[in-house]
Protein backbone atom coordinates (compact mmCIF):
# COMPACT_ATOMS: atom_id res chain seq x y z
CA UNK A 1 0.00 0.00 0.00
CA UNK A 2 1.27 3.46 -0.87
CA UNK A 3 1.17 5.84 2.04
CA UNK A 4 1.87 9.57 2.10
CA UNK A 5 2.86 11.50 5.20
CA UNK A 6 2.81 15.32 5.15
CA UNK A 7 6.15 16.34 6.68
CA UNK A 8 7.91 19.38 8.03
CA UNK A 9 11.25 19.49 9.84
CA UNK A 10 11.25 15.78 10.63
CA UNK A 11 7.72 15.84 12.06
CA UNK A 12 4.19 15.61 10.68
CA UNK A 13 3.30 18.92 9.06
CA UNK A 14 0.83 20.84 11.28
CA UNK A 15 -1.61 21.82 8.48
CA UNK A 16 -1.98 19.69 5.35
CA UNK A 17 -3.68 22.52 3.41
CA UNK A 18 -0.30 24.30 3.23
CA UNK A 19 2.15 21.41 3.72
CA UNK A 20 5.11 21.80 1.37
CA UNK A 21 6.46 18.27 1.42
CA UNK A 22 4.94 14.81 1.44
CA UNK A 23 6.87 11.64 2.11
CA UNK A 24 5.72 8.74 -0.06
CA UNK A 25 6.40 5.23 1.18
CA UNK A 26 5.29 1.74 0.24
CA UNK A 27 4.13 -0.15 3.35
CA UNK A 28 5.51 -2.62 4.23
CA UNK A 29 8.87 -1.30 3.11
CA UNK A 30 11.73 -3.54 2.02
CA UNK A 31 14.37 -1.31 3.55
CA UNK A 32 14.18 1.55 6.07
CA UNK A 33 14.67 4.77 4.18
CA UNK A 34 13.07 3.41 1.01
CA UNK A 35 10.87 6.42 0.34
CA UNK A 36 10.69 9.54 -1.76
CA UNK A 37 9.86 13.11 -0.84
CA UNK A 38 7.38 14.88 -3.07
CA UNK A 39 7.57 18.68 -3.18
CA UNK A 40 4.11 20.24 -2.90
CA UNK A 41 5.25 23.84 -2.51
CA UNK A 42 2.25 26.13 -2.72
CA UNK A 43 0.01 23.83 -4.75
CA UNK A 44 -3.71 24.53 -4.65
CA UNK A 45 -5.99 22.16 -2.78
CA UNK A 46 -7.33 20.41 -5.86
CA UNK A 47 -3.88 19.95 -7.31
CA UNK A 48 -2.72 18.41 -4.02
CA UNK A 49 -5.47 15.82 -4.35
CA UNK A 50 -4.72 15.27 -8.04
CA UNK A 51 -1.01 14.75 -7.34
CA UNK A 52 -1.69 12.26 -4.53
CA UNK A 53 -3.98 10.35 -6.91
CA UNK A 54 -1.29 10.38 -9.61
CA UNK A 55 1.12 8.94 -7.05
CA UNK A 56 -1.42 6.16 -6.35
CA UNK A 57 -1.58 7.12 -2.69
CA UNK A 58 -4.14 5.06 -0.79
CA UNK A 59 -3.62 6.48 2.68
CA UNK A 60 -2.60 9.94 3.85
CA UNK A 61 -1.29 10.75 7.31
CA UNK A 62 -1.40 14.45 8.11
CA UNK A 63 -1.92 17.07 10.79
CA UNK A 64 -4.91 19.42 10.77
CA UNK A 65 -6.87 19.54 7.52
CA UNK A 66 -9.81 21.68 6.45
CA UNK A 67 -13.02 19.76 5.82
CA UNK A 68 -13.43 20.70 2.11
CA UNK A 69 -9.97 19.32 1.39
CA UNK A 70 -10.70 16.17 3.35
CA UNK A 71 -13.93 15.72 1.38
CA UNK A 72 -11.96 16.03 -1.86
CA UNK A 73 -9.53 13.33 -0.70
CA UNK A 74 -12.43 11.04 0.16
CA UNK A 75 -13.87 11.59 -3.31
CA UNK A 76 -10.48 10.60 -4.71
CA UNK A 77 -10.72 7.40 -2.61
CA UNK A 78 -7.78 8.31 -0.41
CA UNK A 79 -8.18 7.28 3.23
CA UNK A 80 -7.06 10.00 5.62
CA UNK A 81 -5.69 9.81 9.14
CA UNK A 82 -5.79 13.47 10.14
CA UNK A 83 -4.75 15.32 13.32
CA UNK A 84 -1.57 13.29 13.68
CA UNK A 85 1.49 14.76 15.36
CA UNK A 86 4.86 13.35 16.26
CA UNK A 87 8.30 12.68 14.93
CA UNK A 88 8.44 11.13 11.51
CA UNK A 89 10.28 7.99 12.63
CA UNK A 90 7.68 7.21 15.28
CA UNK A 91 4.79 8.01 12.98
CA UNK A 92 6.17 5.84 10.18
CA UNK A 93 6.70 2.94 12.56
CA UNK A 94 3.14 3.38 13.84
CA UNK A 95 1.85 3.36 10.25
CA UNK A 96 3.72 0.13 9.62
CA UNK A 97 2.39 -1.40 12.83
CA UNK A 98 -1.20 -0.32 12.10
CA UNK A 99 -1.43 1.74 15.29
CA UNK A 100 -1.41 5.23 13.82
CA UNK A 101 -4.81 5.92 15.42
CA UNK A 102 -3.22 5.51 18.86
CA UNK A 103 -4.07 8.59 21.00
CA UNK A 104 -0.39 9.30 21.58
CA UNK A 105 -0.18 10.49 17.96
CA UNK A 106 -3.14 12.87 18.24
CA UNK A 107 -2.56 16.59 17.97
CA UNK A 108 -3.29 18.56 21.16
CA UNK A 109 -7.03 19.19 21.49
CA UNK A 110 -7.87 16.08 19.49
CA UNK A 111 -7.79 13.43 22.18
CA UNK A 112 -10.73 11.06 21.54
CA UNK A 113 -13.78 11.48 23.70
CA UNK A 114 -13.30 15.18 24.30
CA UNK A 115 -15.25 16.54 21.39
CA UNK A 116 -18.98 16.88 21.07
CA UNK A 117 -20.33 16.67 17.55
CA UNK A 118 -18.82 14.33 15.00
CA UNK A 119 -18.27 15.94 11.68
CA UNK A 120 -15.93 15.19 8.82
CA UNK A 121 -12.93 17.38 9.35
CA UNK A 122 -13.28 17.26 13.12
CA UNK A 123 -10.78 15.56 15.38
CA UNK A 124 -12.97 12.66 16.41
CA UNK A 125 -13.63 11.55 12.86
CA UNK A 126 -10.00 10.77 12.47
CA UNK A 127 -10.53 7.68 14.53
CA UNK A 128 -13.01 6.30 12.04
CA UNK A 129 -10.94 7.31 9.07
CA UNK A 130 -8.04 5.23 10.27
CA UNK A 131 -9.96 2.01 10.57
CA UNK A 132 -10.00 0.81 6.97
CA UNK A 133 -6.26 1.21 6.78
CA UNK A 134 -5.82 -0.47 10.12
CA UNK A 135 -7.80 -3.46 8.87
CA UNK A 136 -5.76 -3.66 5.70
CA UNK A 137 -2.53 -3.26 7.60
CA UNK A 138 -3.40 -5.94 10.09
CA UNK A 139 -4.04 -8.37 7.26
CA UNK A 140 -0.41 -7.89 6.36
CA UNK A 141 0.78 -7.95 9.91
CA UNK A 142 2.49 -11.37 9.79
CA UNK A 143 4.84 -10.41 6.96
CA UNK A 144 5.43 -6.96 8.33
CA UNK A 145 6.50 -8.16 11.76
CA UNK A 146 9.22 -10.30 10.24
CA UNK A 147 10.47 -7.44 8.10
CA UNK A 148 10.32 -4.69 10.70
CA UNK A 149 12.18 -6.72 13.30
CA UNK A 150 15.34 -6.13 11.33
CA UNK A 151 14.58 -2.52 10.48
CA UNK A 152 13.65 -0.86 13.73
CA UNK A 153 13.44 2.91 13.50
CA UNK A 154 16.28 5.04 14.73
CA UNK A 155 15.21 7.74 17.18
CA UNK A 156 15.23 10.44 14.55
CA UNK A 157 15.30 10.70 10.81
CA UNK A 158 15.79 13.83 8.83
CA UNK A 159 14.30 13.63 5.36
CA UNK A 160 14.40 17.44 5.22
CA UNK A 161 17.36 19.64 6.14
CA UNK A 162 17.74 19.68 9.92
CA UNK A 163 16.57 22.82 11.60
CA UNK A 164 15.48 23.92 14.98
CA UNK A 165 12.11 22.27 15.72
CA UNK A 166 9.20 24.48 16.28
Amino acid sequence: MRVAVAIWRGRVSPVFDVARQVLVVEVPWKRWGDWTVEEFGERSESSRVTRLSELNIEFLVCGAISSPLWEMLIDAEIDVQPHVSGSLSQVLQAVADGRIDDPIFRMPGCVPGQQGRRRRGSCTNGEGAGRPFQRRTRRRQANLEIETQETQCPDTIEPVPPDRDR
Partner: protein
Amino acid sequence: MNESDATIILDNITEGVFTVSNEWRITYFNRAAESLTGVPRKEALGKMCSEVLKANICEGQCVLRQTMETGTSVTCKEIFLVDKEGHRRPVSISTALLRSPDGAIIGGVETIRDLGEVSQLRKELHKSYTVHDIVTRSSRMRKVLNNLSDAAETDSTVLLCGESGTGKELAARAIHNLSPRKGGPFIAVNCASLPETLLESELFGHKRGAFTGAQRNKKGRFAQANGGTIFLDELGDVTPAVQVKLLRVLQERQYYPLGADHPEHTDARVVAATNRDLEEMLVTGEFRQDLYYRINVVKLTLPPLRDRRVDVPLLIDHLLERFNHLHKKDVRGTSPDFVQLLLDYDFPGNIRELENIVEHAFVMTPGPNLTVDDLPDAMRPSPPPPGLDLQGDNPLKSLEGRIIWQALEETHFNRSKAAARLGMHKATLYRKIHSLGLKLPTRDGRSQ
Protein backbone atom coordinates in the same frame (compact mmCIF):
# COMPACT_ATOMS: atom_id res chain seq x y z
CA MET B 1 1.62 42.92 40.59
CA ASN B 2 2.45 39.30 41.36
CA GLU B 3 2.30 36.34 38.98
CA SER B 4 -1.14 35.16 40.04
CA ASP B 5 -2.61 38.65 39.44
CA ALA B 6 -1.12 38.63 35.96
CA THR B 7 -2.64 35.20 35.33
CA ILE B 8 -6.08 36.39 36.43
CA ILE B 9 -5.84 39.41 34.16
CA LEU B 10 -4.64 37.38 31.18
CA ASP B 11 -7.40 34.85 31.71
CA ASN B 12 -10.00 37.58 31.55
CA ILE B 13 -9.10 39.27 28.31
CA THR B 14 -10.71 38.35 25.01
CA GLU B 15 -7.42 37.99 23.13
CA GLY B 16 -5.62 34.68 23.19
CA VAL B 17 -2.13 34.89 24.65
CA PHE B 18 0.53 32.21 24.72
CA THR B 19 4.26 32.13 25.25
CA VAL B 20 6.87 29.76 23.90
CA SER B 21 10.33 28.75 24.99
CA ASN B 22 13.36 28.95 22.71
CA GLU B 23 12.54 25.36 21.74
CA TRP B 24 9.08 26.40 20.49
CA ARG B 25 7.27 24.63 23.30
CA ILE B 26 4.23 26.32 24.88
CA THR B 27 5.03 27.69 28.33
CA TYR B 28 1.87 29.72 28.99
CA PHE B 29 -1.62 29.50 27.48
CA ASN B 30 -4.51 31.73 28.57
CA ARG B 31 -8.23 30.96 28.60
CA ALA B 32 -9.03 32.86 25.38
CA ALA B 33 -6.27 30.91 23.61
CA GLU B 34 -8.00 27.71 24.75
CA SER B 35 -11.26 28.88 23.24
CA LEU B 36 -9.71 30.13 19.98
CA THR B 37 -7.64 27.01 19.33
CA GLY B 38 -9.98 24.47 20.96
CA VAL B 39 -7.02 23.09 22.89
CA PRO B 40 -7.27 22.81 26.70
CA ARG B 41 -4.42 24.50 28.55
CA LYS B 42 -3.19 21.31 30.17
CA GLU B 43 -2.85 19.69 26.75
CA ALA B 44 -1.16 22.71 25.19
CA LEU B 45 1.55 23.25 27.81
CA GLY B 46 4.86 21.73 26.76
CA LYS B 47 3.68 20.97 23.20
CA MET B 48 5.13 22.38 19.98
CA CYS B 49 3.31 25.64 19.27
CA SER B 50 2.71 24.73 15.59
CA GLU B 51 0.80 21.60 16.63
CA VAL B 52 -1.36 23.57 19.04
CA LEU B 53 -2.00 26.60 16.84
CA LYS B 54 -2.41 24.73 13.49
CA ALA B 55 -1.99 27.93 11.49
CA ASN B 56 -1.33 28.34 7.79
CA ILE B 57 1.89 30.26 8.49
CA CYS B 58 3.54 27.82 10.93
CA GLU B 59 5.31 26.12 8.06
CA GLY B 60 7.49 28.62 6.29
CA GLN B 61 6.20 32.04 7.35
CA CYS B 62 6.10 31.84 11.14
CA VAL B 63 6.06 35.39 12.46
CA LEU B 64 7.13 34.32 15.94
CA ARG B 65 10.23 32.76 14.40
CA GLN B 66 10.80 36.00 12.51
CA THR B 67 10.51 37.94 15.79
CA MET B 68 12.83 35.55 17.63
CA GLU B 69 15.40 35.77 14.85
CA THR B 70 15.29 39.49 14.15
CA GLY B 71 14.02 40.89 17.43
CA THR B 72 11.31 42.82 15.55
CA SER B 73 7.74 42.60 16.76
CA VAL B 74 4.96 41.85 14.29
CA THR B 75 1.50 43.34 14.74
CA CYS B 76 -1.89 42.34 13.38
CA LYS B 77 -0.82 39.75 10.82
CA GLU B 78 -3.91 38.09 9.39
CA ILE B 79 -3.77 34.32 9.16
CA PHE B 80 -6.10 31.35 9.56
CA LEU B 81 -6.15 28.45 12.00
CA VAL B 82 -7.72 25.10 11.17
CA ASP B 83 -10.03 24.39 14.08
CA LYS B 84 -11.25 21.12 15.54
CA GLU B 85 -14.18 21.01 13.13
CA GLY B 86 -11.99 21.46 10.07
CA HIS B 87 -13.06 25.09 9.59
CA ARG B 88 -10.57 27.76 8.63
CA ARG B 89 -10.77 30.32 11.40
CA PRO B 90 -9.50 33.80 10.50
CA VAL B 91 -7.46 35.44 13.26
CA SER B 92 -4.94 38.21 13.57
CA ILE B 93 -1.72 37.68 15.51
CA SER B 94 0.94 39.88 17.05
CA THR B 95 4.30 38.79 18.42
CA ALA B 96 7.00 40.07 20.76
CA LEU B 97 10.17 38.80 22.41
CA LEU B 98 10.33 37.54 25.99
CA ARG B 99 13.47 38.53 27.84
CA SER B 100 14.85 37.55 31.22
CA PRO B 101 15.71 40.32 33.75
CA ASP B 102 19.29 40.23 32.46
CA GLY B 103 18.13 40.85 28.88
CA ALA B 104 18.62 37.35 27.47
CA ILE B 105 15.98 36.10 25.05
CA ILE B 106 14.02 33.33 26.77
CA GLY B 107 11.22 32.91 24.26
CA GLY B 108 8.40 34.72 22.55
CA VAL B 109 4.83 35.80 23.18
CA GLU B 110 2.01 35.71 20.67
CA THR B 111 -1.45 37.25 20.97
CA ILE B 112 -4.37 36.04 18.87
CA ARG B 113 -7.51 38.00 18.02
CA ASP B 114 -10.58 36.36 16.52
CA LEU B 115 -11.46 37.87 13.14
CA GLY B 116 -14.52 35.69 12.52
CA GLU B 117 -16.94 38.58 12.70
CA VAL B 118 -14.71 40.98 10.77
CA SER B 119 -14.08 38.36 8.12
CA GLN B 120 -17.82 37.67 7.78
CA LEU B 121 -18.54 41.35 7.35
CA ARG B 122 -15.73 41.68 4.82
CA LYS B 123 -17.15 38.78 2.85
CA GLU B 124 -20.56 40.44 2.85
CA LEU B 125 -18.93 43.65 1.65
CA HIS B 126 -16.40 42.40 -0.88
CA LYS B 127 -18.05 39.06 -1.75
CA SER B 128 -14.65 37.41 -1.49
CA TYR B 129 -16.04 33.89 -1.40
CA THR B 130 -14.08 30.69 -2.02
CA VAL B 131 -15.05 27.01 -2.06
CA HIS B 132 -14.60 27.12 1.72
CA ASP B 133 -17.74 29.27 1.82
CA ILE B 134 -19.80 26.70 -0.05
CA VAL B 135 -21.20 24.49 2.67
CA THR B 136 -21.82 20.94 1.57
CA ARG B 137 -21.51 17.32 2.45
CA SER B 138 -23.45 16.08 -0.58
CA SER B 139 -21.37 13.89 -2.87
CA ARG B 140 -23.02 15.46 -5.94
CA MET B 141 -22.13 18.96 -4.81
CA ARG B 142 -18.61 17.93 -3.80
CA LYS B 143 -18.05 16.61 -7.30
CA VAL B 144 -19.15 19.96 -8.69
CA LEU B 145 -16.75 21.74 -6.30
CA ASN B 146 -13.86 19.51 -7.34
CA ASN B 147 -14.56 20.34 -10.98
CA LEU B 148 -14.94 24.00 -10.05
CA SER B 149 -11.50 24.06 -8.40
CA ASP B 150 -9.95 22.41 -11.45
CA ALA B 151 -11.71 24.81 -13.82
CA ALA B 152 -10.66 27.81 -11.73
CA GLU B 153 -6.98 27.17 -12.37
CA THR B 154 -7.44 27.48 -16.12
CA ASP B 155 -8.63 30.41 -18.21
CA SER B 156 -11.46 28.47 -19.84
CA THR B 157 -14.96 29.86 -20.16
CA VAL B 158 -17.29 28.29 -17.58
CA LEU B 159 -21.03 27.82 -17.92
CA LEU B 160 -22.88 27.47 -14.61
CA CYS B 161 -26.32 25.91 -14.84
CA GLY B 162 -28.86 25.37 -12.12
CA GLU B 163 -32.19 26.54 -10.79
CA SER B 164 -32.60 29.97 -9.33
CA GLY B 165 -31.10 30.24 -5.84
CA THR B 166 -28.66 27.32 -6.15
CA GLY B 167 -25.63 29.57 -5.66
CA LYS B 168 -24.44 30.23 -9.21
CA GLU B 169 -23.03 33.67 -8.37
CA LEU B 170 -21.29 32.29 -5.27
CA ALA B 171 -19.75 29.58 -7.47
CA ALA B 172 -18.67 32.20 -10.02
CA ARG B 173 -17.01 34.26 -7.28
CA ALA B 174 -15.31 31.13 -5.93
CA ILE B 175 -13.95 30.40 -9.44
CA HIS B 176 -12.58 33.94 -9.62
CA ASN B 177 -11.09 33.85 -6.12
CA LEU B 178 -9.41 30.50 -6.78
CA SER B 179 -8.03 31.53 -10.15
CA PRO B 180 -4.74 33.25 -10.95
CA ARG B 181 -6.93 36.29 -11.76
CA LYS B 182 -8.06 36.72 -8.15
CA GLY B 183 -6.08 39.96 -7.84
CA GLY B 184 -8.09 41.40 -10.74
CA PRO B 185 -11.67 42.66 -10.74
CA PHE B 186 -14.79 40.49 -10.61
CA ILE B 187 -17.55 42.17 -12.59
CA ALA B 188 -21.06 40.73 -12.42
CA VAL B 189 -23.70 41.65 -15.01
CA ASN B 190 -27.30 40.50 -14.81
CA CYS B 191 -28.20 40.20 -18.48
CA ALA B 192 -31.93 39.87 -17.75
CA SER B 193 -32.19 43.13 -15.84
CA LEU B 194 -31.44 45.47 -18.77
CA PRO B 195 -33.13 46.05 -22.13
CA GLU B 196 -31.12 45.18 -25.23
CA THR B 197 -29.78 48.66 -26.05
CA LEU B 198 -28.75 49.39 -22.49
CA LEU B 199 -27.19 45.94 -22.08
CA GLU B 200 -25.02 46.48 -25.14
CA SER B 201 -23.79 49.81 -23.82
CA GLU B 202 -23.34 48.30 -20.36
CA LEU B 203 -21.27 45.37 -21.64
CA PHE B 204 -19.18 47.07 -24.29
CA GLY B 205 -19.33 50.76 -23.35
CA HIS B 206 -19.92 53.64 -25.75
CA LYS B 207 -18.16 56.60 -27.29
CA ARG B 208 -19.20 60.20 -26.87
CA GLY B 209 -22.02 61.04 -29.27
CA ALA B 210 -22.84 57.41 -30.01
CA PHE B 211 -26.49 58.14 -29.20
CA THR B 212 -28.59 60.96 -27.83
CA GLY B 213 -27.48 61.62 -24.28
CA ALA B 214 -24.05 59.96 -24.66
CA GLN B 215 -22.12 63.04 -23.59
CA ARG B 216 -18.89 61.28 -22.68
CA ASN B 217 -17.04 58.05 -23.33
CA LYS B 218 -18.14 55.23 -21.06
CA LYS B 219 -16.15 52.11 -20.27
CA GLY B 220 -18.13 48.89 -20.59
CA ARG B 221 -18.12 45.95 -18.19
CA PHE B 222 -15.74 43.98 -20.41
CA ALA B 223 -13.22 46.82 -20.16
CA GLN B 224 -13.73 47.03 -16.38
CA ALA B 225 -13.13 43.28 -16.08
CA ASN B 226 -9.78 43.40 -17.87
CA GLY B 227 -7.32 41.11 -16.08
CA GLY B 228 -10.17 39.65 -14.03
CA THR B 229 -13.45 37.83 -14.52
CA ILE B 230 -16.76 38.92 -16.03
CA PHE B 231 -19.80 37.05 -14.77
CA LEU B 232 -22.70 37.06 -17.22
CA ASP B 233 -25.74 36.03 -15.18
CA GLU B 234 -29.01 34.97 -16.84
CA LEU B 235 -27.24 34.52 -20.17
CA GLY B 236 -30.25 32.61 -21.52
CA ASP B 237 -32.20 35.87 -21.53
CA VAL B 238 -30.00 37.89 -23.92
CA THR B 239 -31.41 38.85 -27.30
CA PRO B 240 -30.08 37.40 -30.58
CA ALA B 241 -28.38 40.74 -31.42
CA VAL B 242 -26.35 40.73 -28.18
CA GLN B 243 -25.64 37.01 -28.67
CA VAL B 244 -23.85 37.85 -31.94
CA LYS B 245 -21.68 40.44 -30.20
CA LEU B 246 -20.87 38.08 -27.34
CA LEU B 247 -19.88 35.44 -29.85
CA ARG B 248 -17.38 37.87 -31.38
CA VAL B 249 -15.89 38.65 -27.97
CA LEU B 250 -15.48 34.98 -27.17
CA GLN B 251 -14.05 34.13 -30.59
CA GLU B 252 -11.73 37.04 -31.17
CA ARG B 253 -11.41 38.60 -27.71
CA GLN B 254 -12.44 41.85 -29.37
CA TYR B 255 -15.53 44.06 -29.32
CA TYR B 256 -16.70 47.43 -30.62
CA PRO B 257 -17.99 49.92 -28.04
CA LEU B 258 -21.13 51.66 -29.35
CA GLY B 259 -20.08 54.37 -31.81
CA ALA B 260 -16.44 53.21 -31.98
CA ASP B 261 -14.47 52.85 -35.23
CA HIS B 262 -11.84 50.53 -33.84
CA PRO B 263 -12.26 47.32 -31.87
CA GLU B 264 -11.01 47.03 -28.32
CA HIS B 265 -9.26 44.00 -26.93
CA THR B 266 -10.44 42.24 -23.78
CA ASP B 267 -8.52 40.07 -21.36
CA ALA B 268 -11.49 39.15 -19.18
CA ARG B 269 -12.29 35.57 -18.35
CA VAL B 270 -15.95 34.79 -18.99
CA VAL B 271 -18.10 32.87 -16.51
CA ALA B 272 -21.74 32.64 -17.58
CA ALA B 273 -24.79 31.34 -15.75
CA THR B 274 -28.34 30.50 -16.61
CA ASN B 275 -31.33 28.79 -15.06
CA ARG B 276 -32.79 28.07 -18.49
CA ASP B 277 -32.29 24.96 -20.57
CA LEU B 278 -29.93 26.25 -23.27
CA GLU B 279 -30.03 22.98 -25.17
CA GLU B 280 -33.78 23.25 -25.52
CA MET B 281 -33.34 26.88 -26.58
CA LEU B 282 -30.99 25.69 -29.33
CA VAL B 283 -33.78 23.48 -30.68
CA THR B 284 -36.31 26.33 -30.63
CA GLY B 285 -33.75 28.69 -32.18
CA GLU B 286 -33.81 31.12 -29.22
CA PHE B 287 -30.10 30.65 -28.53
CA ARG B 288 -27.33 30.59 -31.11
CA GLN B 289 -25.63 27.26 -31.53
CA ASP B 290 -22.18 28.77 -32.20
CA LEU B 291 -22.38 30.89 -29.03
CA TYR B 292 -23.52 27.88 -27.03
CA TYR B 293 -20.47 25.88 -28.10
CA ARG B 294 -18.21 28.82 -27.25
CA ILE B 295 -19.76 29.20 -23.80
CA ASN B 296 -20.11 25.52 -23.03
CA VAL B 297 -16.41 24.80 -22.55
CA VAL B 298 -16.65 23.73 -18.93
CA LYS B 299 -20.25 23.18 -17.83
CA LEU B 300 -21.02 22.84 -14.14
CA THR B 301 -24.55 22.10 -13.00
CA LEU B 302 -25.39 23.07 -9.43
CA PRO B 303 -27.92 20.64 -7.95
CA PRO B 304 -31.14 22.00 -6.40
CA LEU B 305 -31.34 21.89 -2.62
CA ARG B 306 -34.01 19.16 -2.69
CA ASP B 307 -31.37 16.89 -4.28
CA ARG B 308 -28.86 17.64 -1.51
CA ARG B 309 -31.06 17.52 1.57
CA VAL B 310 -28.11 16.21 3.55
CA ASP B 311 -26.81 19.78 3.44
CA VAL B 312 -29.90 21.36 5.02
CA PRO B 313 -28.75 20.97 8.69
CA LEU B 314 -25.24 22.12 7.75
CA LEU B 315 -26.59 25.16 5.94
CA ILE B 316 -28.86 26.02 8.86
CA ASP B 317 -25.83 25.96 11.22
CA HIS B 318 -23.81 28.03 8.77
CA LEU B 319 -26.60 30.60 8.36
CA LEU B 320 -27.08 30.82 12.13
CA GLU B 321 -23.40 31.53 12.61
CA ARG B 322 -23.54 34.19 9.91
CA PHE B 323 -26.67 35.88 11.27
CA ASN B 324 -25.25 35.80 14.81
CA HIS B 325 -22.24 37.73 13.51
CA LEU B 326 -24.30 40.15 11.44
CA HIS B 327 -27.13 40.81 13.89
CA LYS B 328 -25.12 40.58 17.13
CA LYS B 329 -27.41 37.93 18.59
CA ASP B 330 -26.60 34.64 20.24
CA VAL B 331 -28.98 32.06 18.81
CA ARG B 332 -27.37 28.79 19.71
CA GLY B 333 -29.24 26.17 17.73
CA THR B 334 -32.48 24.72 16.49
CA SER B 335 -35.10 22.35 17.81
CA PRO B 336 -35.20 18.89 16.15
CA ASP B 337 -38.71 19.46 14.71
CA PHE B 338 -37.50 22.74 13.11
CA VAL B 339 -34.79 20.87 11.22
CA GLN B 340 -37.13 17.99 10.40
CA LEU B 341 -39.71 20.34 8.93
CA LEU B 342 -37.08 21.95 6.70
CA LEU B 343 -35.73 18.55 5.71
CA ASP B 344 -39.21 17.59 4.49
CA TYR B 345 -39.60 20.80 2.47
CA ASP B 346 -38.81 20.94 -1.25
CA PHE B 347 -37.33 24.48 -1.44
CA PRO B 348 -38.43 25.63 -4.90
CA GLY B 349 -36.35 28.77 -4.25
CA ASN B 350 -33.38 26.64 -3.17
CA ILE B 351 -30.71 28.04 -0.82
CA ARG B 352 -31.98 31.60 -1.21
CA GLU B 353 -35.34 30.45 0.13
CA LEU B 354 -33.73 28.53 3.00
CA GLU B 355 -31.71 31.64 3.84
CA ASN B 356 -34.89 33.74 3.96
CA ILE B 357 -36.72 31.18 6.10
CA VAL B 358 -33.85 30.92 8.59
CA GLU B 359 -33.46 34.71 8.70
CA HIS B 360 -37.20 35.09 9.37
CA ALA B 361 -36.99 32.56 12.22
CA PHE B 362 -33.79 34.20 13.49
CA VAL B 363 -35.45 37.60 13.71
CA MET B 364 -38.67 36.26 15.25
CA THR B 365 -37.27 33.88 17.84
CA PRO B 366 -37.56 35.06 21.42
CA GLY B 367 -35.36 32.27 22.78
CA PRO B 368 -31.90 30.83 22.30
CA ASN B 369 -33.11 28.15 19.84
CA LEU B 370 -35.12 28.34 16.63
CA THR B 371 -38.38 26.40 16.84
CA VAL B 372 -41.23 25.70 14.40
CA ASP B 373 -43.16 28.58 16.00
CA ASP B 374 -40.55 30.98 14.58
CA LEU B 375 -41.13 29.85 10.99
CA PRO B 376 -43.16 31.89 8.49
CA ASP B 377 -46.89 31.07 8.67
CA ALA B 378 -46.88 29.21 5.36
CA MET B 379 -44.17 26.87 6.62
CA ARG B 380 -45.79 26.01 9.92
CA PRO B 381 -47.37 22.56 10.08
CA SER B 382 -51.18 22.52 10.08
CA PRO B 383 -52.73 21.48 13.39
CA PRO B 384 -53.24 17.73 13.69
CA PRO B 385 -56.68 16.32 13.02
CA PRO B 386 -58.76 16.16 16.21
CA GLY B 387 -58.47 12.79 17.90
CA LEU B 388 -55.27 11.76 16.10
CA ASP B 389 -52.61 10.60 18.53
CA LEU B 390 -49.34 12.17 17.31
CA GLN B 391 -47.46 11.10 20.40
CA GLY B 392 -47.72 7.45 19.40
CA ASP B 393 -44.71 5.72 17.96
CA ASN B 394 -46.20 5.00 14.52
CA PRO B 395 -45.30 7.81 12.08
CA LEU B 396 -47.02 6.02 9.16
CA LYS B 397 -50.30 6.01 11.03
CA SER B 398 -49.88 9.68 11.80
CA LEU B 399 -49.18 10.48 8.16
CA GLU B 400 -52.16 8.40 7.02
CA GLY B 401 -54.35 10.29 9.48
CA ARG B 402 -53.19 13.64 8.11
CA ILE B 403 -53.83 12.61 4.51
CA ILE B 404 -57.31 11.28 5.30
CA TRP B 405 -58.13 14.43 7.27
CA GLN B 406 -56.95 16.63 4.41
CA ALA B 407 -59.18 14.73 1.95
CA LEU B 408 -62.14 15.06 4.32
CA GLU B 409 -61.57 18.79 4.76
CA GLU B 410 -61.32 19.32 1.01
CA THR B 411 -64.65 17.52 0.49
CA HIS B 412 -66.34 19.32 3.40
CA PHE B 413 -66.36 16.02 5.29
CA ASN B 414 -68.37 14.22 2.63
CA ARG B 415 -67.15 10.65 3.28
CA SER B 416 -68.11 9.30 -0.16
CA LYS B 417 -66.28 12.06 -2.01
CA ALA B 418 -63.27 11.78 0.32
CA ALA B 419 -63.12 8.01 -0.19
CA ALA B 420 -63.27 8.52 -3.97
CA ARG B 421 -60.51 11.12 -3.78
CA LEU B 422 -58.36 8.77 -1.72
CA GLY B 423 -59.05 5.89 -4.11
CA MET B 424 -60.58 3.64 -1.46
CA HIS B 425 -63.98 2.18 -0.74
CA LYS B 426 -66.24 4.16 1.58
CA ALA B 427 -66.29 1.26 4.04
CA THR B 428 -62.48 1.22 4.16
CA LEU B 429 -62.49 4.95 4.88
CA TYR B 430 -64.96 4.48 7.75
CA ARG B 431 -62.82 1.69 9.16
CA LYS B 432 -59.67 3.84 8.97
CA ILE B 433 -61.42 6.86 10.54
CA HIS B 434 -62.49 4.60 13.35
CA SER B 435 -59.12 2.88 13.83
CA LEU B 436 -57.22 6.18 13.74
CA GLY B 437 -59.67 7.66 16.23
CA LEU B 438 -60.41 10.73 14.08
CA LYS B 439 -63.19 12.85 15.50
CA LEU B 440 -65.34 14.16 12.65
CA PRO B 441 -67.59 17.22 13.01
CA THR B 442 -71.30 16.58 13.44
CA ARG B 443 -72.13 18.48 10.24
CA ASP B 444 -70.74 16.92 7.11
CA GLY B 445 -70.82 17.31 3.35
CA ARG B 446 -74.20 15.64 3.01
CA SER B 447 -75.87 18.15 5.29
CA GLN B 448 -74.74 21.14 3.16
